[in-house]
């Protein structure tokens, strides 16, 4: 089986190929250059693997949560590639990709993956590796203030991602004493998505290209006219 994975949910841009068990990857931390970099990266990988694009079986992409523009970029490129090649997509969590990379280095422990969501909040996902070492989500991903983070019942945790870098202090109440080791600065990357995609592919959990849609978590992005009026009224009253 041949899979192509892409992730642009954070400052990092990456693409990776799974060619019959071998992983090739391109990875670059390059804010605001993802659109420019992504297709040339894929082109290079295909050349290096000497793989015609028609030999790809599915497109895996980091569907977020993360930067709105970034996750849309990966999703729209996944749509274009998958529709053009007539193959399915496998949407995967960018938080799970973070957790997988962490689990590969520190097997066994549960992991809190956190991405800075700006506006005083983080995207949070809690994971545990299964028997194969592939992470499984313990709950649905959420966006929330760092003060409200609650870990599961396990005594020892690892933490990973930009959420810790930005909000380490606010998180230390819940995490401080239960953390094992210093949290690593890490970005979600395509190679980790490829590992997780194996499990999805085995159970045929793929979808048609138009289902390549981001998970934004934040869905209220603007106030309607009547909400603005209501806010003004409340401000005047209060």
């Amino acid at each position, binding site marked *: 089986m041949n899979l192509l994975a892409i992730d642009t949910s954070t400052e990092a841009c990456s693409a990776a190929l799974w060619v019959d068990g071998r992983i090739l990857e391109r990875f670059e931390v390059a804010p605001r250059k993802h659109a420019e970099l992504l297709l*040339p990266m894929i082109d290079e990988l295909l050349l290096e693997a000497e793989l015609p694009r028609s030999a790809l079986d599915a497109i895996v992409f980091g569907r977020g949560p993360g930067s709105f*523009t970034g996750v849309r970029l990966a999703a*729209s490129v996944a749509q*274009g590639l998958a529709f053009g090649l007539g193959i399915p997509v496998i949407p995967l969590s960018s938080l799970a990709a973070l957790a997988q990379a962490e689990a590969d280095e520190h097997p066994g422990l549960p992991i809190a993956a956190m991405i800075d969501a700006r506006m005083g909040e983080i995207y949070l996902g809690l994971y545990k590796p299964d028997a194969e070492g592939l992470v499984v989500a313990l709950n649905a991903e959420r966006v929330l203030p760092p003060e409200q983070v609650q870990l599961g019942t396990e005594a020892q945790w690892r933490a990973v991602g930009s959420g810790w870098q930005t909000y380490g202090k606010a998180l230390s109440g819940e995490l401080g004493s239960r953390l094992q080791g210093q949290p690593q600065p890490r970005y979600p990357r395509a190679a980790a998505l490829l590992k997780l995609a194996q499990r999805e592919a085995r159970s045929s959990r793929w979808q048609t290209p138009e289902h390549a849609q981001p998970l934004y978590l934040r869905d209220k*992005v603007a106030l309607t006219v009547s909400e603005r009026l209501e806010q003004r009224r409340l401000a005047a009253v209060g």
Partner: protein
Amino acid sequence: MATPNLTTLGIETSCDETGLALYNTERGLLGHALFSQIDIHAAYGGVVPEIASRDHLRKLLPLLQEVLDQAGMQRSDIDAVAYTAGPGLVGALLVGACLGQSLAFALQRPALGVHHLEGHLLAPLLEADPPQPPFVALLVSGGHTQLIAVRALGDYELLGDTLDDATGEAFDKCAQLMGLPYPGGPALARLAEEGDPTAFKLARPMLDRPGLDFSFSGLKTQVALAWRDSAQDDRSRRDLAASFQAAVVETLVEKCRRAWTQTGFSTLVVAGGVGANRRLRADLRELASRDGVQVHYPRPEFCTDNGAMIAVAGALRLAGGESSGPAISVRPRWPLAELTRIAEGSGLRAQGPEELDSARS
């Protein structure tokens, strides 16, 4: 090698319309589909860029399938992909550009980022009796009010521009202050047809000065004051709408006359959403026929944003050997005058990867 029979997919996502179309150099338009987000943004009182981007990504592939079905074609029948690369909302542009460029990459076909306004200028080429350059173009939409000299395809000179509001924007704002729901331009134009255009005395902006520039914000202020001091009933709404429309149309028509006189061109192309305005069409027709000038419009559905105009503009440039990618880039701001003349159809330029791939397999 020349490609006589070239099918181009056009993708438009620069603002709040998702438009897709298939255009063939010999057979013309093969299919087109559009989803307008107007109703989605209405509750917000204007376009919310993030909401627009999200919706484009939901609609693109279903619309693409729809145009393929209309044309009785499969994805492999697409010879080239053209998408709007600017100007417009950056996030919205990116969705169409990413999908278009990666679709072309997968199909191993050339892709090209197209200038949205060139699309509007060339939309009349989709009609039965297409205009031949040189011509003067009046671009009047929600975002633009420009007079452009089209000396040849791709050779554009900006003759005049608005110093403040665009015409459609002025229609929408005046409609709003008279209590019509967003976007009120078309509704205001309908009301105007029943009103008395002489009921309110409004100045004709910029007509007392030479030149081809426009300004509508002063007129908008006059309308606001006139509305405030009026009875604010149905009758004053109709009459003020008619008076406002008369002032705008008289200004647009006079500037067009100056433009064709100054350039000596005998063809005028009107593009953009306000081009649907009936009073504008009637007055232009009258003045143009007096001066021996021919006026061309795209059909009403291609006056506003659509994929067909992007397909046709892209097809001409792609056939001239232009292409973009695989790096994806959009230009939210992109002066029309930076475009270059379109080369005579020398044929599609094969993309590197295609040769590599066929050599490999």
